[in-house]
C-alpha cells in the first residue's frame, strides 16, 4: 500500500464523493452515537483531515459473523467509504492477498504505521497448550496478538468472543479461549460485544475513534454511547412488564399482542446493548420486536447463564435436580443423629433415679 501522506479529503475526491454526501454521513453517525448535531460538522472536518488511518484486522477464533455484520452495516450508508479511507491493511476475508504475501503485508503495515495503527480483533484467543488450537501461517494467535499489540495505538475487540471470550470460552472451553483483555494490559481496549455486534455500533465507534479518539467506556470497556443502557431500559414492551402482562408461549394471545417476553427467557434486563434503539438491519427490527426474547449475547458467559428460554429469575444450574439427593442425605444424617439421640435418651433413662416420697421426708424439717 502506498505510504503517501494523502489526506482523506483527497481520497474522497478520487471516489467522486462530494462534501455534502460526506456531511450527510457524519450527521447520521453523530445522531446514532447520541452526539449533539453540532458535532457532526466537527466530525466531518476532523475526518476529512486525518491521514489514511491504518487498521489491522486480526481474526482469531471467530465465526466471521462480525465481519459479516460490519460489511452489512447500512446506517452510515457510506460505511464502505470508511473502509476506503481506513486502509484496511490486513483482513483475512476481505483482502485479496493470501498466504505469505498477506503476512508480509501485515508486517509491512505494522512497520509503516508503528504506534499509530488501530488493531481490530475479532474472535477469542486460545491459550491452552501454548495456543496451538488457532494459528495463522504457523504463528499462534496468542503470539500474533502480543506481537501486533506492542505497536498498536488502540485495540478494538469486536464481538463477544474478542470482548469476553464468547462461544469458544463457553464451558468446557476446550481451547482455553480468553478475551483480548486477558492478554493485552498496557493498551487501551474498546470492547464492542455482541454476537455479532450491531453494524452501526461498530462503524459508529470506529468513526468516533478516528475522529475524537477513545469514546467514554464503562467498567467492562464498552462505549457508554451504545452500552450505557440495557435492552430492558429502552424496550418498547416495558409497559407490559411493569403491568405484569407476559406472553406464556411463543404463539399465545400474549405473544400476538406483543406482551413482555420475560417468561420466555428474555435476558433484556441484564443485557447492555443498543438493539432496542438502534435496532438491526437498518432499523428494521430487533429480537424482541420480532417476538423472541433477548438472549443477552453482548454479556460475558451468556452461553452458560442458564437456558435461553428459562426466565431470568430461575436457577441456571437447575437446583431442583439436587433437591431429591439432598433430601436423601438429610434423611440419612437425620436418622444417624436420631439414633444417636435415642441412645443418649435411653442412657439417661437407665441412669434415671425415681424420686420417691421418702426422698422428701427429710425435707420438711430442713
Amino acid at each position, binding site marked *: 500500500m502506498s505510504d503517501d501522506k494523502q489526506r482523506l479529503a483527497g481520497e474522497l475526491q478520487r471516489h467522486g464523493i462530494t462534501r455534502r454526501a460526506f456531511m450527510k454521513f457524519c450527521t447520521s453517525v453523530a445522531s446514532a452515537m447520541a452526539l449533539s448535531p453540532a458535532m457532526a460538522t466537527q466530525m466531518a472536518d476532523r475526518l476529512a483531515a486525518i491521514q489514511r488511518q491504518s487498521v489491522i484486522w486480526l481474526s482469531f477464533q471467530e465465526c466471521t459473523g462480525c465481519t459479516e455484520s460490519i460489511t452489512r452495516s447500512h446506517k452510515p450508508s457510506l460505511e464502505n467509504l470508511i473502509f476506503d479511507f481506513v486502509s484496511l491493511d490486513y483482513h483475512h476475508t476481505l483482502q485479496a492477498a493470501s498466504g505469505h504475501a498477506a503476512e508480509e503485508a501485515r508486517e509491512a503495515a505494522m512497520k509503516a504505521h508503528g504506534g499509530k495503527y488501530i488493531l481490530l480483533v475479532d474472535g477469542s484467543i486460545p491459550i491452552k497448550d501454548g495456543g496451538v488450537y488457532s494459528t495463522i501461517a504457523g504463528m499462534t494467535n496468542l503470539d500474533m496478538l502480543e506481537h501486533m499489540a506492542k505497536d498498536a495505538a488502540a485495540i478494538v475487540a469486536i464481538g463477544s468472543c474478542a470482548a469476553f471470550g464468547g462461544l469458544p470460552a463457553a464451558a468446557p472451553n476446550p481451547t482455553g479461549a480468553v478475551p483480548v483483555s486477558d492478554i493485552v494490559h498496557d493498551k487501551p481496549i474498546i470492547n464492542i460485544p455482541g454476537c455479532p455486534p450491531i453494524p452501526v455500533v461498530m462503524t459508529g465507534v470506529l468513526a468516533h475513534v478516528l475522529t475524537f479518539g477513545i469514546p467514554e467506556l464503562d467498567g467492562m470497556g464498552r462505549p457508554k454511547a451504545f452500552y450505557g443502557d440495557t435492552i430492558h431500559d429502552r424496550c418498547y414492551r416495558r409497559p407490559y412488564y411493569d403491568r405484569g402482562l407476559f406472553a406464556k408461549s411463543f404463539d399465545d394471545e400474549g405473544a400476538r399482542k406483543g406482551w413482555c417476553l420475560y417468561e420466555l427467557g428474555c435476558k433484556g434486563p441484564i443485557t447492555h446493548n443498543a438493539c432496542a434503539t438502534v435496532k438491526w438491519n437498518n432499523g428494521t427490527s430487533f429480537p424482541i420486536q420480532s417476538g423472541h426474547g433477548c438472549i443477552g449475547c453482548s454479556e460475558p458467559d451468556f452461553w452458560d447463564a442458564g437456558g435461553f428460554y428459562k426466565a431470568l429469575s430461575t436457577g441456571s444450574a437447575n437446583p431442583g435436580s439436587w433437591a431429591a439427593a439432598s433430601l436423601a442425605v438429610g434423611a440419612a444424617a437425620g436418622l444417624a*443423629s436420631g439414633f444417636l439421640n435415642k441412645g443418649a435418651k435411653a442412657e439417661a*433413662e437407665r*441412669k*434415671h433415679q425415681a*424420686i420417691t*416420697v421418702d426422698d*422428701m421426708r427429710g*425435707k420438711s424439717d430442713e
Partner: protein
Amino acid sequence: MSASFENGINTLKTLIDAPIAAYFSSCTNCGICAQACIFYTETDDPKYTPIRRVEPMKRIWEQNYTLVGKLKKLVGLSREVTEQDLQNTVELAFESCTTCGRCTMMCPQGNDIVYMIRRMREGLTAAGLAPKELQEAAVRTADTGSVMGFPMKTLQAQVNAAEKETGIKIHVDEPNVEYMLLLSSAEVMQFNEIIAALAQIFDQAGVTWTLSSKAHEAGNPGMHMGASEIEGEFIQRIVDAAQELNIKNVISPECGHAYYAIRWEGPNVLKRPYPFKVWHIIEVLDKLRAEGRIKTTGCETERLTFHDPCQAARRGGVNVPQRNLLNMVTCNFIEMNDRMACNWCCGGGGGMNTIEKAEPLMQKVFHRKRRQIEELDVTTVVTMCATCRNTLEEGIEANNMNIEVLGLTEVVANHLLKEKDND
C-alpha cells in the same frame, strides 16, 4: 437421697420428646405468650414471659438432641445448664405459674408451653428443688391418705353427719356399685356440705355409689411437683381400691388439678389404661340431667356468673356440662368475657395456693379475675373447684367485694325436688 443436680438434668433428658423438640424448633421468641399469662399482664414484669420458664430445658434439648446444638456448644456459643440456672427457674416454674395453660392457647406456633412447664417441674423436683410445701403435702398424702393429713375417721365423721342430716345411707368401701366417689381434702375440710348434697342428688337419681377408705383423696401433690412416680403412687391407690370394689366408674370431684391428674395424666404415668372410666362430678350430674334422673324446681334468681377452673375446663376439656346444669338451676346466668378454654386463672392453682412465697403474687394476679367479675356486676360466682373457691373467696375478701362463691353441685342440690314437694 437420689435428688441431685445430675439426676435433675438427666430426668429432663428423659422427658424431652418429639413434641418438645418441635416446640423449641418453632419458638421464634415473639413474646405473644406473655400477653396470655396473668403473671405478665398483671405485673408487667417480662421475667414471667411463659416460654422463659423452660429455658434450661431448651438448652438441654439443643445441646443433646440436635447436631447444630452440639456444634454450638463445641464452639462455645451455647452455655451448659448450671445448678444456678435450675435454682433461678424454680421461681418461674413453681412460684409464679399455676400451670393454667392459657399460654398454650395463644402461641402462634402452637407450642404447648404448659406441657413443657409440667416437665420442667419434674426436672426441678428430681434435682431436689421442688418447693418444700409441695414436698410436705406429698409426704402427708403418702402417710395419711389425705393432702391435708386428716385420717380416714375425720372423713367418716363427715359422712356420718351427712347421713344424719339427709337420712340417706352413704356407703364406704361398698363393692359392686355404679360409682366410686373421690373427694379432695379441701372439700372434706371446708366445703363438706358437698357430701350431703351428692347423697341427696344420687339418692333422687337412684345412683348407687360408695367412698373408699383406702382411696378417698382426689388431690395429687405429685402432679403439682411434676414427680410422676409419686403421682403414680397416689393414682395406683385409686386403681387398687376401684379393682378391689369392682368399680367401673370413678368420679373426680370439684377439684381442678385432681381431674387432670386422674383423667389425663394417670394412665400415662402408670403406662397402662384404667380398668374403669373416669368422670368429672359435673359430667355425671349432666348425664343424670340428660337422662332426666335429676328433677329440680325453681332457679337462682340473682345475677350470677361461672368461673371455669383451668385444669378441668381449658386443660381437662369439661366445658359444656357445667353450662347445661347452670341453665337448669339458674335463670340469670351471665357468661364471663373470656371463658371455657380461654378463661383467666383465679391464681391459686398448680400449687400456688400452698407455696407461701407465692402468696403476694397470687393476690396481685387475682385483680384480673376481680375485673372480670366487676365487669358483669353480678352478686354470685359459681365454680366447680375447691381450690378456685378458696382462692376466689380469699381474693373477694381481700378486695372487699361482696360476692358469694358457690359450688355448682351445691347449687344443683339446693334446687332438688324434695320428696314432700312433689306430692
